[in-house]
């Protein structure tokens, strides 16, 4: 399917949720409102013309100003400091689409996509870990790469680039072990652990 046809079939359903659209690097990129994200993602998967069956990646971008104080910073918009980018792929139709959601600086919250795409689980955990974007409805939203007692969000532009945190106690991971045992139907009394 051509890229413009792709945009048409989306626009007819969720015209109010799409802020802007453009074609960049050969893929259609839509900026959508956070409230519409789950509905659009479900339609991307279930619509027979689209059938985006893979969520390839979730990336978070920090658009904070990068130049020193005093320099004109008109381009910086506090209501769009963070940008979460979802990349979908369709193995049936062999096409891709990019969804972007802009989030404000003070409280970046998004609904989770784990109910629709299983691969959103770790991607959202990474976005939470590195950028501090919270995903409501995620069943296990905790840090995935940095230490579980890490303070701050390491890839934000205002995190000092050379700031180290000495955290040398290993994470017990009892909650994950219990969940896995529970999924296999193995009962363990807590004293045995």
């Amino acid at each position, binding site marked *: 399917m051509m890229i413009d046809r792709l945009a048409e079939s989306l626009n007819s359903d969720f015209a109010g949720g799409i802020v802007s659209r453009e074609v960049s690097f050969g893929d259609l990129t839509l900026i959508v409102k956070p409230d519409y994200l789950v509905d659009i993602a479900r339609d991307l998967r279930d619509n027979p013309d689209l059938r985006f069956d893979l969520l390839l990646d979730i990336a978070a971008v920090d658009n904070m100003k990068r130049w020193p104080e005093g320099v004109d910073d008109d381009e910086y918009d506090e209501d769009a400091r963070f940008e979460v980018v979802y990349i979908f792929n369709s193995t049936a139709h062999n096409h891709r689409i990019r969804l972007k959601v802009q989030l404000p600086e003070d409280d970046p919250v998004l609904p989770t996509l784990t109910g629709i795409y299983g691969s959103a689980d770790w991607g959202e955990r990474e976005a939470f870990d590195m950028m501090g974007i919270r995903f409501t409805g995620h069943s296990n939203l905790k840090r995935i790469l*940095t230490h579980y007692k890490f303070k701050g969000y390491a890839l934000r532009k205002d995190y000092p680039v*050379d700031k180290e945190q000495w955290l040398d106690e*290993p994470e017990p991971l009892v909650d994950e072990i219990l969940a896995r045992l529970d999924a296999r139907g193995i009962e363990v009394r807590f004293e045995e652990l």
Partner: protein
Amino acid sequence: MGRDFLEKHRVEKGLEESVLLTRMDVAPDFIDTIVQWGRKNSLWPYPFGTACCAIEFMSSISSIHDQSRFGAEAVRFSPRQADMMIVAGTINHKMVPILKRIYDQMCEPRYVISMGACASSGGFYDNYTTVQGIDMVIPVDVYVAGCPPRPEGVLEAIVKLQEKLENQSIAKMPFQTEPENR
């Protein structure tokens, strides 16, 4: 054991074996020399490889460079069977408890070679993940420069370590571990 050692101590050939004889007053020196000679020529490396330096370390083990010429070819993957740790690669903060624990589990006296820029100083990873040199966690005997070092660098580090062991008396061996960590 050089010529001066053989001059100091008499060697007698018996019927079935060679016997070394020494006097009481030079006995500590005598034992030191034998232990040092044995220890320096039978280092047992434990490769703590976390990054590309470990690939280069494999090359120094294998036949072209042949680390066994220096008696340090028996690579063990259990710290209980090793006394020379070669930290080859980037050590990040989540790796620190593992590194410290494995160092504590190694046989004493034990030695550490910090291989490459990352292990020695953090390399170019001056950020939130990476330890700026493993000497903030464990003592290091020899540093090897390079990113990654050539296998010759590893061999030179082993030779430097051997020079250090030559002069280390067993009466002054560094034993460090608290018993509960062994």
